[in-house]
């Protein structure tokens, strides 16, 4: 039987604000543990969150860039669970009313074929701290520097049909958030990471199969490998007469396999409810158009312009607009050497390295 994978991604992009989403503490990466955690990040008794407007602006910027409807009223909710690196015993997130509604983005595959991937929603939330399991002699250390860092969780529709499409989508979002300067995209530092929902179904069948969620994947290579492995695992399981269980799985890059974390029955009841410490976020048209005015030229617009203005091939224009830095570099070189074609070759490294 021929099987068709169905994939949706939840991308967590750390927003590049200077301070945290609900406190004034700095967000810079790499500080000594617990030196960038104030009373609010520590969840001290009596403290209250105050929303960072910059995080709201960045979320709106993203929403506008994917053609999404910006919610005139969005609501922060508490997601309740106990974990040592979650100081308050709940994460402040958005649940029923996210700030960014339905949008979409066009991805381009290796063969030049384009495909539109739907974006279900994007919402603001705070990151948790980190549990450090090494160097503590059988105990666990907690570093709360990351606690309260703003995240934009971007949820896609289950529109992708292969690991390659998933990677292309993730790269597209990665490029976009860096163009918008709302996320540094540093995957090693965890600024850009994703969960993948994967299921398979017999080709031609409309109904989705049971999905597994792969947690916390932080590189393009791992996304592709984790999804490929999961597809293979599910097909083998079904063909061997088994059933896919709805569960959360963790990808282990060292062993190159996914393994079960918890099943649907063990899934936590997060007891979401609107956070009474925060007012609903109400955005008027003036605020939204103000943010719109700050949008840079987006990758697709730039690509079209490069084709029109410099006479580049679609392929070259695509390569040169993959990142904002590359595009800027190309335009500077093209301006100096007066030869877009040569500049393009310089730019994508086909003849010489850009630094030369």
């Amino acid at each position, binding site marked *: 039987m021929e099987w068709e994978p169905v994939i949706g991604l939840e991308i967590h992009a750390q927003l590049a604000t200077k301070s945290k989403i609900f406190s004034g503490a700095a967000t810079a990466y790499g500080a000594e543990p617990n030196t960038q955690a104030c*009373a609010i990040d*520590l*969840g*001290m*008794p*009596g*403290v*209250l*969150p*105050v*929303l960072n407007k910059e995080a709201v602006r960045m979320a709106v910027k993203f929403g506008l860039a994917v053609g999404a409807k910006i919610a005139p009223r969005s609501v922060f909710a*508490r997601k*309740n669970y*106990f974990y*040592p690196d979650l*100081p*308050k*015993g*709940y994460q402040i997130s958005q649940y029923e009313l996210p700030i960014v509604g339905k949008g979409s983005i066009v991805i381009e595959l290796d063969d030049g074929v384009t495909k539109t991937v739907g974006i279900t929603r994007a919402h603001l939330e705070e990151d948790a701290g980190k549990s450090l399991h090494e160097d503590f002699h059988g105990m666990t250390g*907690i570093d709360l520097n990351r606690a309260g860092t703003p995240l934009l969780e971007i949820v896609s529709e289950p529109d992708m049909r292969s690991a390659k499409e998933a990677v292309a989508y993730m790269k597209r979002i990665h490029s976009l958030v860096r163009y918008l300067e709302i996320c540094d995209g540093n995957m090693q530092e965890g600024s850009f990471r994703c969960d993948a929902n994967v299921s398979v179904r017999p080709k031609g069948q409309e109904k989705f199969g049971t999905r597994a969620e792969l947690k916390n994947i932080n590189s393009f290579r791992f996304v592709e490998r984790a999804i490929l492995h999961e597809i293979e695992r599910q097909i083998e399981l079904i063909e061997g007469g088994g059933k896919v269980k709805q569960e959360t799985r963790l990808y282990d890059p060292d062993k190159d396999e996914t393994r079960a974390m918890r099943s649907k029955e063990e899934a936590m*009841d997060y*007891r*979401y*409810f609107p956070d*009474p*410490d*925060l*007012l609903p976020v109400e955005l008027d048209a003036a605020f939204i158009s103000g943010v719109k005015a700050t949008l840079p030229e987006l990758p697709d617009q730039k690509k079209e312009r490069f084709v029109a203005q410099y006479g580049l091939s679609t392929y070259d224009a695509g390569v040169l607009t993959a990142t904002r830095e590359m595009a800027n570099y190309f335009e500077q070189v093209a301006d100096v050497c007066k030869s877009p074609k040569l500049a393009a070759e310089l730019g994508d490294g086909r003849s010489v390295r850009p630094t030369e």
Partner: protein
Amino acid sequence: MHTLRLAALSAGLKAKKFSSAELTRGFLQRIAAHDKQLNAFVTVAEESALKQANAADARLAKGQAVALTGVPLAQKDIFCTQGVKTTCGSKMLANFIAPYSATVVQRCDDAGMVMLGKTNMDEFAMGSSNETSYFGPVRNPYDLNAVPGGSSGGSAAAVAARLAPIATGTDTGGSIRQPAALCNLTGLKPTYGRVSRYGMIAFASSLDQGGPMARSAEDVALLMNVIAGFDSNDSTSVDTPVPDYTADLTKSLAGLRIGIPKEFFGQGLDTKVEQVIRDALKQYERLGAKIKEISLPNSGLSVPTYYVVAPAECSSNLSRFDGVRYGYRCDQPVDLVDLYKRSRGEGFGAEVKRRIMIGTYALSSGYYDAYYLKAQKLRRLISDDFKNAYKEIDVIMGPTSPTVAFNLGEKTDDPVTMYLSDIYTIAVNLAGIPGMSIPVGFVGQRPVGLQLMGNYFDEARLLNIAHQYQQATDWHLRAPKGFE
């Protein structure tokens, strides 16, 4: 000096009749002499109080004093105080010292007030009798066999016994007004958002509000002038101008329209308490007010609504007390789950656990719509009742509590009966409007409080209405025997 009220204390300090240090030592001595009987204080902050008093005296000498500079007060132990223990009445925080001060505390400090200590309270403000405190019950100065009310029972007993001229309280379902009523005090729960909640340990975030407990409306007004106002650290605090709360105190009540909700005079109201309340209303008529019976048709839903909303919020608010970063941690946890279970199991008392369980249940998947969401809808109906009423009246009056203070231990085995002692105060929190309780008489030795409920941000008018009554009566001046 301990019999003087705030205006006289302030005038005496400015006229150099006494110093803040003398005043402070005087109150500390009274606490030392009398608090063994009452248990009103969890912490007496002798050292820092004297330091603050000396600083206030220096400020007075330089002529840089503001209205309440040098005046002592007691803070409910729910407000975080940098450098002084904040227990919230719980074993969980029995040794907790906050690294920062609550906005209310900071404003009192900035005004040069002197904090005598931290007052006893029901654990995490959950209770109506001060019997759920880890630090033992508080006794009512008017009758030592009686409870002082709760949860701000320590503040009420301290002020009633003249161990502090004034104190702060917090009110989630009646925790300022009910103990004020039971201890012959004037207490104000301001409009939700009028006083910052920053640094006030949260019980139910959408209902909690701090306010003054004092021996007169004028004293309440003076402390409101210090603590009220917008705070950028509290997103739910409201940025509207703060009036001078003493400005309207002397306005005449001629033509005042008082609404009496018939639902507040039904079954459950003690007949002797009712008589005292009716007499107080007659006094208001003599002051020129017009009384009209009104209806708050949904007020009967207040208690069930409250006991979904408040526990739901508390179940989440109290999750941070997990033994990981601060507060009580069990001995020798074997793993993470054991650490959580035993730290919370041993650190919280029975009433707190009961409410965490109710709230967890009400928010769980499959029950959320039936309980939490439904309660939010009822809350709107209850608010609408008040909004409609204020179209034709200025203030609503009724009893604060259905009975006078009950005996210690009388209701501890029956949580539902205990919950019903807040039956008249809860709707005010659900609607977010301001409410007061003022002394209007006694049944035997035990005081009776009249509740005044105002429209949003109408604190100044409530204080005016209370003050005019106090100009014509002397109930609020009657000190408890042995504490005169």
